[in-house]
């Protein structure tokens, strides 16, 4: 549902063909789209405004590189600026200040933001990567079973948790954690607080008290990566009241656009240290500005979309071809597609090498003069045919053959070889179809379409109606001399084996 920013801008700049510098008008038009894109990505309104202002200054008058459209240029400027804002000046995002043990880390945030899970993930990371001895304590006396949750997680990741004492208030727990950490020789102790609304006076005062007791080296605000406009309030209120030192964005494995990252960064000025990428205990990664920047602008979307579209298209085509093959229908269009597929997969030699035990054969084949040039010639021959001829090769008589061979710059004998190959393969298809070995066919098809993907023009040629018509015409024709062996080979290769 989200339009990709480049697309949006493409529309705006379609009328603008002139190159050179970006005029103020260009920039204004473009930035209006950028603004909407940011808002749709859940960047908070004030942050979006501020950001646009900054970009406007940079973009106006900026030179448009040759071979790039003004739209692309604006996207680039926006993208760069996004990265700059997200990254900030502070160098190492994954670093926590945990010197002079025991170093306290305070985790704060709204309810359901993922504090407890993040606490455990962070503890695991500190223990495994930094070799720290970590103690976790849950100060969540509000949510039922929150303390048990942290205790269970502690067991799972092998990190100690402060024993639960029922009825203790958060400040007392924090004190106890501090003492325990000091006595037990822990490097770090983590205080997981209850989720609280940033406007809940009572709970905010409580977390302030905890802060004053623990004097944390790091105060981490845990924010749901799917947060919308409310990110402003949360960031402002928590930072003002408690004073945070860093942010962890959770649920970044979702399909949200992550605009909250920009909001958080812009409003608090504090670094985003980590992102949570799943429910598993090791799904915590350091924050990477460029990835999030691409995501906010929806650039990631388009890549995913294209890939998905391709995958579906291929699957559909494979399915369609398979049906045809099962009926024993195999015309020049099908053959061409296979030849092209082979070219894609690295030509004859490449394919031979990929097949077990055929590496040697590849050499021999090369010596025998079967190379990619031949594939190309055969494709050229097919391309010299009319549509009717491709769909129905039986109609080729002498005059047509001459014309086709001339068109491809080859001899009629070359064409005859190709025709024979097609006949044999068609026949084999029919046999396989009769054998009802759907499974094998499917596998062969999957192999054919598994990698690489088809060029889009191919898809255009695969007109289902034409294929159907061709199929009907072919269906009536009688059987041709069979071809016993080679059935186990993928259809694309079987013809070649014979031909040689």
């Amino acid at each position, binding site marked *: 549902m989200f339009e990709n920013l480049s697309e949006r801008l493409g529309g705006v700049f379609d009328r603008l063909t002139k190159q050179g510098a970006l005029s103020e008008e260009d920039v204004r038009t473009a930035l209006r789209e950028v603004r909407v894109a940011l808002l749709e990505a859940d960047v*908070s309104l004030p942050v979006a405004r501020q950001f646009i*202002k900054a970009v406007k200054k940079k973009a106006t008058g900026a030179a448009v590189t040759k071979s790039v459209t003004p739209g692309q240029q604006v996207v680039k400027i926006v993208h760069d600026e996004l990265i700059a804002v997200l990254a900030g000046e502070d160098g190492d995002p994954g670093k926590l200040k945990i010197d002079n043990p025991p170093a306290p880390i305070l985790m704060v945030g709204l309810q*359901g933001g993922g504090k407890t899970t993040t606490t455990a993930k962070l503890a695991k990371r500190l223990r495994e990567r930094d070799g720290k001895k970590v103690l976790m304590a849950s100060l969540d006396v509000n949510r039922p079973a*929150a303390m048990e*949750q942290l205790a269970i997680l502690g067991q799972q990741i092998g990190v100690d948790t402060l024993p639960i004492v029922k009825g203790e208030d958060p400040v007392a727990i924090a004190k106890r954690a501090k003492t325990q950490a000091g006595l037990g020789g822990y490097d770090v102790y983590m205080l997981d607080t209850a989720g609280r*609304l940033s406007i809940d006076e009572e709970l905010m005062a409580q977390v302030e008290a905890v802060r004053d007791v623990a004097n944390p080296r790091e105060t981490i605000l845990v924010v749901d990566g*799917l947060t919308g406009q409310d990110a402003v*309030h949360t960031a402002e209120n928590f930072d003002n009241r408690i004073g945070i030192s860093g942010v962890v964005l959770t649920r970044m494995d979702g399909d949200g656009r992550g605009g909250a990252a920009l909001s958080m960064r812009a409003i608090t000025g504090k670094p985003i240290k980590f992102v949570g990428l799943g429910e598993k205990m090791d799904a915590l990664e350091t924050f990477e500005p460029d990835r999030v920047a691409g995501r906010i602008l929806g650039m990631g979307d388009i890549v995913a979309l294209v890939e998905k579209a391709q995958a579906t298209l291929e699957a559909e085509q494979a399915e369609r071809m398979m049906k045809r093959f099962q009926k024993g229908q195999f015309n020049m269009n099908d053959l061409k597609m296979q030849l092209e597929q082979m070219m894609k997969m690295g030509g004859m030699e490449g394919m031979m090498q990929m097949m077990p035990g055929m590496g040697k054969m590849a050499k021999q084949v090369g010596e025998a003069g079967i190379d990619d040039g031949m594939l190309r010639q055969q494709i050229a021959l097919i391309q010299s045919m009319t549509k009717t001829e491709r769909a129905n090769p039986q109609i080729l008589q002498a005059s047509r053959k001459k014309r086709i061979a001339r068109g491809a710059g080859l001899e009629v004998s070359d064409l005859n070889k190709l025709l024979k190959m097609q006949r044999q393969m068609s026949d084999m298809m029919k046999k396989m179809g009769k054998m009802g070995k759907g499974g094998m066919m499917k596998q062969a098809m999957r192999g054919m379409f598994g990698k690489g993907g088809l060029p889009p023009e191919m898809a255009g040629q695969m007109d289902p109606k034409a294929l159907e018509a061709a199929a009907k015409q072919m269906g009536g024709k009688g059987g041709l001399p069979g071809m016993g062996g080679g059935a186990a080979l993928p259809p694309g290769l079987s013809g070649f084996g014979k031909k040689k």
Partner: protein
Amino acid sequence: MSFFGKLKNRLFKSSSKLDEGLDAIVQDGGTEEPGEAPVEPAADARPDRAAQPEPAPAAKPESAPAPETEPEPAPKAEPDPKAEPEPAQKAEPEPETDPAPEPDPAPEGPKPLDMPAMEEAPAAPAARGGLFGRLLGRGGGQAVMRRELDDDMLESLEELLIASDMGVDTALRVTANIAEGRFGKRLSVDEIKALLAQEIARIMEPVARPLPLYPKKPQVVLVVGVNGSGKTTTIGKLASQFRAAGKSVVIAAGDTFRAAAVEQLQVWGDRAGVPVLTAAQGSDPASLAFDALAKAQADGADLLMIDTAGRLQNRADLMEELAKIVRVIRKKDPDAPHNTLLVLDATTGQNALNQVETFRKLADVSGLVMTKLDGTAKGGVLVALADKFGLPIHAIGVGEQIDDLAPFDPEDFAAALTGLDKG
């Protein structure tokens, strides 16, 4: 409606950006009009024009910088006179360049209006307050800022709606509806709020429906949602409400993934006085759901509520797990689940649209519950959801206590969203 009262209070207490923004827009280029402006005699209208010098200059620059640069004039302002500092300060640079208006508005009217603005700005508010008080005190009517409904104002209104998470599309639609037939009319903050609230309530009206109860026993309610949206808490609250209504309820703790999720639900079960069926962590939630349904049938329970683990809607494997739960309980009761509730977090932004879309497609969601509406998030995305999907909104969560679950009332919601003072 105490819940909404609470909600609204919180909204006001917190920085109600919508409110501020509205005032800012209206002030920025609006003109002062006495409360009963329409009925004012012509004689009064002219001094009013005379008073124009201050708003007028503001009105001019507004056309250019308004949409993007106007965030500053944010300080809260009610339509009462003492809020005027804004335009005054805005106009400040101008007055010294155009003392011209001064001489010519000489006519009868109380012209001293622009004077304070030209002099020391800091003192202006108080002075103006006094002046206006005297000036307008005559009819007892309060001064009302009005501003022409033009493109700039509409754009600002759009932004304000967007700031409530309504999303760009819906915000455009709502403002367009408001503008229809009113373009060029002069409106005050309260009027705009009322219009907005009216429009939002109109959109929300059809989706405000409580959880339907069927005679079928047991009625199976499946509760789904992304992680941390408040599924478990919502089940606890719902169970308590149904229990109070005299229904016998059984809960199945289907979140077998998250640590201590079962314990959490057990606590809620105790609080609500409802039995909770559990399974070991890591076991198959579908089999638990099946057993729970069997037990609920055997016990003749009225309601079976099935909790599920939180899952992000783009995780195909987890969505498949959900589909399996549905498949399995249908073996026992082909109509089950009778309701599938999607629990949404009010702080969630536009991703809520994706959530609803995917969960609806894969889990056949029949209704929504929005939680955490007691925070600073206004849940404007509900408007977008109502507009796009039309799924009923059964309830809203407004706190952590067991009775902090309120039915969804479109008018109260609209009022809270727009900051309209009802009644």
